[in-house]
């Protein structure tokens, strides 16, 4: 049964990808990209990767779509000219695809319990986690503790993206010759979206908080929660207008969240060093190593959530508020 679903979803994925490449209308392309992400999330989900699916749905289908639209509002809706050298590009893509297909010839069957990935480190994680860390969601244990250094790196990737956008869009814009149409104040004049949206915002934020604090027990964690809360706040900004949103949470505070979240994560790592362990060793945070691990994970997940939420909101405002 799962094969039927997978083939169906993958077929749709290919169709969407081709449509994105073929369309000349960028607005359509952005919408199709959102659909692509949603299909991808569904794919991850039927492969039992619920954590990844949640991230993909919140970031790929949610926040990036809004940011793309914000960027589109600064440029034009139509692709201006066809790129040259399509033949070469198609050739490179075709070769890459053929080589990748060749790579699947000797690959283990999907879900094969004898596959190398299920034989080496994975069993150790599954066996040791209840004893060493004591949380049910092993994915969170891997991300936050065993490979916590990678996750720290990912938080700094988000941070780099955020300062990159702020740095580039912070440049003094070239002098504009034609005045732009007056900025609209959100969807204030559209009654139905406003009423429905206002109802939704608190629930989205609440769900985000649930995902944040439930990450040790079920799918979720800082990345997903940060993205979901940012989606809620962006919805608020879309409904009430840019100004109201910035008045509620000023940009300085958002940037402070990015910096603070990243530093919180780093600080937990350094604390491990100061207390006699290695960097990011949480077990020294408490006399009971298992408790220490749990404290550490909760703290760094909070750092991740705060940083991701702040970064996504900062990037959104950088695009949306640029005249």
């Amino acid at each position, binding site marked *: 049964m799962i094969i039927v679903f997978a083939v169906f979803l993958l077929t749709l994925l290919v169709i969407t990808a081709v449509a994105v490449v073929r369309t000349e209308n960028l607005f359509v392309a952005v919408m199709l990209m959102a659909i692509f992400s949603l299909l991808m999330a569904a794919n991850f989900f039927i492969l039992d990767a619920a954590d990844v699916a949640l991230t993909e749905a919140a970031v790929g289908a949610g926040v990036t779509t809004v940011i793309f639209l914000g960027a589109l509002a600064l440029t034009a809706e139509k692709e201006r000219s066809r790129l040259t050298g399509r033949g070469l590009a198609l050739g490179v893509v075709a070769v890459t695809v053929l*080589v*990748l297909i*060749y*790579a*699947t*010839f*000797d*690959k*283990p069957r999907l879900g094969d319990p004898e*596959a*190398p*990935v*299920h*034989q*080496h*480190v*994975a069993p*150790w*994680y599954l066996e*040791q986690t209840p004893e060493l860390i004591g949380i049910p969601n092993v994915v969170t244990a891997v991300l936050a*503790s*065993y*490979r*916590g*250094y*990678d996750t*720290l*790196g*990912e938080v*700094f*990737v988000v*941070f*780099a*993206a955020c*300062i*990159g956008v*702020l*740095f*580039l869009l*912070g*440049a003094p814009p070239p002098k504009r010759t034609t005045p732009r149409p007056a900025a609209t104040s959100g969807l204030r004049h559209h009654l139905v979206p406003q009423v429905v949206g206002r109802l939704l915002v608190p629930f989205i934020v609440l769900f985000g908080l649930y995902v944040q604090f439930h990450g040790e027990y079920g799918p979720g964690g800082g990345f997903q929660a940060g993205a979901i809360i940012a989606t809620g706040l962006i919805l608020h900004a879309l409904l009430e207008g840019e100004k109201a949103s910035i008045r509620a949470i000023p940009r300085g505070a958002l*940037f*402070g969240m*990015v*910096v603070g979240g*990243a*530093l919180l994560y*780093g600080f937990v*790592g*350094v604390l*491990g*060093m*100061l207390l*006699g*362990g*290695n*960097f*990011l*060793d949480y*077990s020294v945070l408490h006399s009971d190593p298992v408790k220490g691990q749990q404290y550490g994970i909760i703290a760094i997940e909070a750092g991740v959530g705060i940083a991701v939420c702040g970064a996504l909101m900062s990037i959104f405002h950088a695009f949306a508020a640029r005249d």
Partner: protein
Amino acid sequence: MNLTEQLVALQIVVPLLSAPVVALLRPRWLAWAATTAASATAFAIAIAIALGVREGRAFGYQMGSWPAPYGIELAVDPFSAVLLLIITGASTFALLGGRLSVDTQIEQQRQPLFYAAWLLGLAGLAGIAASADAFNIFVFMEISSLASYVLIAGGPDRRALPSVFKYLIMGTVGATFYLIGVGLIYMMTGTLNLADMELRIHEVGDQSPILVAAGFITVGLALKAAVFPLHAWLPNAYTYAPHAVTVFLAACATKVALYILLRFDFVVFQQNLIGHDVKFSYFLMPLAVLAILVASGMAAFERNLKRLLAYSSVAQIGYIMLGASLVNHAGLTASIVHIFNHSLAKGTLFLAVACLAMRLDSLRLDGIAGAARNMPWTMAAFVVGGLSLIGIPGTAGFISKWYLIAAVLGEGPLGFLLVAAIVISSLLAVVYVWRVVETAYFQSPPDGAVPAREAPPEMLILTWTAALLNVYFGFASDLPLSLSSAASALLMGHLP
């Protein structure tokens, strides 16, 4: 906490965690000072590690105290020690010498973000060099790549934006190819730790996913390292970047990609894939020779000073690849020494360019005509860097050329052809360096130009320190040579 045990972690943690702090610092000189302090600390740590490694001490580190392969491991051997020296050294020199240049090129209020991106770039590159985990390398590649896109796009010339966009697309393709390769290897071995991978890949070495992975990783990293003919992104990115950024990135960024390429190849693939050493030579040697000849030729005809030096970098990457493609101890040693020496030479040259840019409007050759009259010290430093680039005895560049030629001659009849390529390219280097020198020393300044003053003393001091290092390592080449030789022995030790 025991400081020596934590050195490897601090090497990355210090610049990484300084970045968010710097982003908040006002006024701008404070942001610069904090960045320089973090970079100088990292440089000091790198020196301490390099000295320790030379005495044969091993620097390993288990992040979060989890044993490999379950957790992430850092490991510094002589090869990574060379890279760490270059990365942190280049960053520190560029920051100390580039403060005034950054002031003229980047608006005050944007400087804290710029310096934060700088530290992320530094931490990312150092993180790659110190890591012993294939996926962790990817994470830090992302950090360093994003940061370098931001840094390059900071240039005041609007043409920086299209060139950085091209770099972004190429860089992302390269990183994605690397990730696909690592994913395929993980599928077949279930591990991400490089040392563990070396053991576990052996029994599946002839299966299609591993072969494809080797291809993807090699091509992806070659793209990031600007190995000819995948270098198209490099000349414009270097040309339009802020001058201080060019000093930093030209000295170390592509070399870090080369470093992972060599490390992955020698540690994981060479002994486990049948006939891999031969294929490695067949593919890379012709590309290396082409890079040496074609890019040197392009440089000889280029009229923009920064792009001229950028093409020369593509040629120098060719030298490094040529040494590695011999797949023997002498060749690899030459390769790694050249990584070190070329950083010195190119760093000096771009520092001199930053000095010139302080006083001149245009960096095209006709723009620098007669510059030596008004800026004698700057141009003299440029000449020293240029001599090192050509490989004149008494400079660092000579050492690596000498070792490379000696290594190549060991190859028999083919060796003579390769030597011919190296000699022709060195002559081309004489041509392009001479064109700059001739224009600056013997041509008269354009009519009506305001006579330029000598560059600010603080920039000159740094430029000259770098220039003198070229001379110093031309005579006292013991440190880079011993490290490179040890690194090469280590890499060759993985061969059957």
